């Protein structure tokens, strides 16, 4: 069915549904959207699309940019909306900020309060954080090639994409920590990533191969 195919490609069934029938879906699927916080701009459709996407993303970040000790992850598993993001780029700041953080009004209010105080820079970064994701199709291909089995279910792909995204987050954040320790600035360089990777390994966050790789 087209919807299903769309789901696989777009990684966001709401978005797929939206593409199918822009008229109906917004009502149907605006489960938890709330009125704009004032950053709302852009067309209604795009806004809803963004919202729906972000609703899906919403899962992760409760708090902006903090090493994820706390709440369910800074890992926006967000099914990659990058392809759609390019199209909806003008609505960069629209959707964020109206997502129920786990449908908890208190958290929601807190989130809104935080988001309202973001500078444009911060908003951009947050937007990237929420919307970025590894492509499910690529991940699926990778998993198939690793396991040799064609039966990689969609939830599995989603989970692995989420885990990978969080892992990237840990890497980048640790690399930033390394940089501040060395009093360096600017873009992250490979040496920082390597050091970060080494530290993560020491912390045990990287699965070690039980059998050492031969013939390296």
């Amino acid at each position, binding site marked *: 069915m087209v919807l299903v195919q769309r789901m696989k490609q777009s990684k*966001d*069934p709401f978005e797929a549904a939206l593409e199918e*029938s822009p008229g109906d*879906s917004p009502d*149907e699927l605006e489960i938890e959207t709330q009125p704009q916080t004032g950053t709302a701009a852009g067309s209604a459709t795009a806004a809803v699309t963004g919202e729906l996407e972000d609703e*899906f993303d919403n899962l*992760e970040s409760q708090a902006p*940019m903090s090493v*994820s000790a706390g709440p*369910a*992850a800074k*890992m926006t*598993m967000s099914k990659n909306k990058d392809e759609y993001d390019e199209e909806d780029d003008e609505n960069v700041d629209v959707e964020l900020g109206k997502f129920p953080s*786990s449908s908890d009004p208190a958290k929601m209010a807190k989130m809104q309060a935080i988001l309202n105080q973001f500078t444009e820079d911060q908003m*951009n*970064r947050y937007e*990237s*954080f*929420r919307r*970025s*994701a*590894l492509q499910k199709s*690529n*991940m699926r291909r*990778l998993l198939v*090639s*690793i*396991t040799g*089995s064609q039966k*990689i*279910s*969609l939830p*599995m792909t*989603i*989970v*692995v994409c989420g*885990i*990978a995204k*969080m892992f*990237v*987050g840990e*890497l*980048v*954040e640790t690399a*930033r920590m390394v940089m501040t320790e060395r009093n360096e600035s600017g*873009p*992250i*360089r*490979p040496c920082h*990533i*390597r050091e970060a990777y080494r530290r993560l390994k020491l912390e045990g*966050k*990287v*699965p*070690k*191969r*039980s059998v050492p*790789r031969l*013939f*390296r």
Partner: protein
Amino acid sequence: MSNPSAGQSSKSKAGSSQPCETTSFKRKRGVFQKDLQHMMYGFGDDPNPLPETVALVEDIVVEYVSDLAHKAQDLGSKRGKLSVEDFLYLIRKDPPKLNRCTELLSMQEELKQARKAFEVDEEKLASIE
């Protein structure tokens, strides 16, 4: 040093112990590159991360996913087939990841239900007309 996967064109494990740019495996470079750039910016890097950094992170991530998948497969083979449970078991020690994954899974369920409801409604509309 015969590398069995040398002949394959699919993305095999990076095979890089040091996450350096290895060219011995036939793996398409930059599979996740575009997405990774946005992601790294979101997590704190420059708006335009260095390409070598992105390549390195991609290598690391592919290696991570490969290791994870291998371990999951080992677990799964005991039960018969690979399932999501295996992955969840592997990250049980990591609360943020675990929570995130459970959220994602429940979210996906919700979306599935919503889609179903949506389709049913469409049918109803179609039948009425």
